[in-house]
């Protein structure tokens, strides 16, 4: 029921902090055909939520990130964020009450041949809104700061991504493989991992 389509929620966020918008690569842009019947009433629900966002905008924290607007369905917003300030954004989104994304649903990692991409799916119960933060990691120095102290369920999630994709998380409590046996070589979910096909 949630499909990635285009709506610009962070318009007022753009006015507050100088955020640059980057277009998402061709492969993942969704066909922007008009909403069909089911999603029409969804649109009006979101309209009401906007007003909730306007009054609460406070400019205490200095948020430096080039959030990239993606064409997303009313319920979910995709932001493309740089790798360095992922922790700051997540902490800001979690603790500030105008966004109040207090639940990390899951961390989706995807190998896009030229670089690895992690999407943090956040969910806020107060405004019934989801937001996905996408981070690119290039394959050579695949390192990123851990988030497990902000969201404690990211602990096992990051170990799974380390196990299947090989991304090392800086100062993660105990980074070990969870799915594969310890002596397993290679990271299975990478595109260049070939399963030994039986003849």
């Amino acid at each position, binding site marked *: *029921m949630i*499909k990635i389509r285009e709506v610009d929620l962070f318009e007022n966020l753009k006015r507050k902090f100088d955020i640059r918008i980057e277009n998402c690569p061709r492969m993942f842009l969704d066909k922007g055909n008009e909403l069909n019947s*089911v999603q029409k009433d969804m649109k009006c629900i979101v309209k009401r939520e906007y007003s909730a966002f306007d009054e609460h905008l406070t400019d205490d924290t200095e948020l430096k990130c080039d959030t990239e607007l993606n064409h997303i369905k009313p319920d979910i917003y995709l932001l493309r964020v740089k790798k360095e300030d992922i922790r700051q954004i997540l902490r800001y989104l979690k603790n500030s009450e105008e966004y109040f994304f207090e639940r990390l649903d899951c961390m*989706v990692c995807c190998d896009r041949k030229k670089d690895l991409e992690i999407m943090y799916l956040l969910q806020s119960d107060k405004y019934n809104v989801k937001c996905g933060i996408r981070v690119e990691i290039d394959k050579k120095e695949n390192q990123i700061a851990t988030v497990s102290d902000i969201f404690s*369920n990211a602990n096992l999630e990051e170990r799974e991504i380390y196990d299947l994709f090989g991304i090392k998380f800086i100062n993660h409590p105990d980074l070990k493989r969870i799915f594969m046996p310890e002596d397993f070589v290679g990271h299975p979910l990478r*595109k260049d991992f070939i399963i030994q096909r039986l003849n």
Partner: protein
Amino acid sequence: MEKILTDRMRINIGPQHPSTHGVMRMIVDLDGETVENVETVIGYLHRGMEKMAETSTYIQYLPIVDRIDYLSGFFCSYAYVNGIELLMDIEISEKSKYIRTITMELNRMASHLLWLGCFMMDLGASSPFFYTFIEREKILDIFENLTGNRMMYNYYTFGGVKRDIDKENLYAIKKFSDEFVFALKDLEELINYNPIFISRTKNLGILEKECAYAYSITGVNLRASGIKKDLRKDKPYLIYENIEFNVPISENKDVQARYILRIKELKESNKIVQQCIDWLLTNLNNKNIITDVKPLTLKPEGIAISEVESSRGLMQCIIYADGTLNPYRIKWRTPSFYNVQIINEISKGYLLSDLIAIFGSLDIIMPEVDR
């Protein structure tokens, strides 16, 4: 009296153990009998479902989807199929929506019944295990003559349902749901006010709200901690808007609360099933259960996040589709993967036998954790 210092004993409740549902190893540090620290080792059932998605086309991946959570196969196939329908903007007919809801609710009842049997077996009472399985066999018989298989259904396709529900099936479901009310009453009389059961499960394994949020717990464990969060009410999908049912909640966040909530959910699902039957019985004649979509040459494009409230919690299927025949990447967000992580938090300071009860009450099964 200051605590007597006993040396720690490290016992591992190994992969093959009657009370770990499936294969999970818990390394428990015991101080005498009280549990100090539980480290869970998982991955004994990792079959690489997500890698298989990349090597098979959309229609080939459909039968494999039931095996992700074999106790509630319909939920997984719905999550996958709904994701594709979102991407392709396929509209499914009213009747197939009702068929999907009725099969999903029956599947939820079957999974809760199995949980109830195993939970009571963990606590030591052996006879409720058999009573719940008698009821569960009835549901499985209904699924068998509806979809052909007891547990792996492969019944949903993109755009609808493969076969229509005929009259006998509907009357069988009606007979089952009427009898189920009395059977559940007998079970409750046996278990609910049993003093030993109450003393074994009262204020045990307390799950606070912050801890539930921090570990993004979903489903009955969350609702047992007093947070009213049910996808069927927040974002009603399928036909949950025009079906009136309530979501049970309890405040005292312990093992007993989870037990009571699951029993109430069984009743709610039974009510939903009855409402669906009435609608289905009225319009038996409209036969359009599938919209003509050419599944073999399906080429969707974009990202889809399709959610469903499975019997264990919020299940999400995130599909990266790049317009070719094979999905680029499919990620399953399964609820048990997150429920497993809180065992260490909530079972500190309790006895060994309580640890088994707490683990049983979380309703965790391993294929969901290991995918």
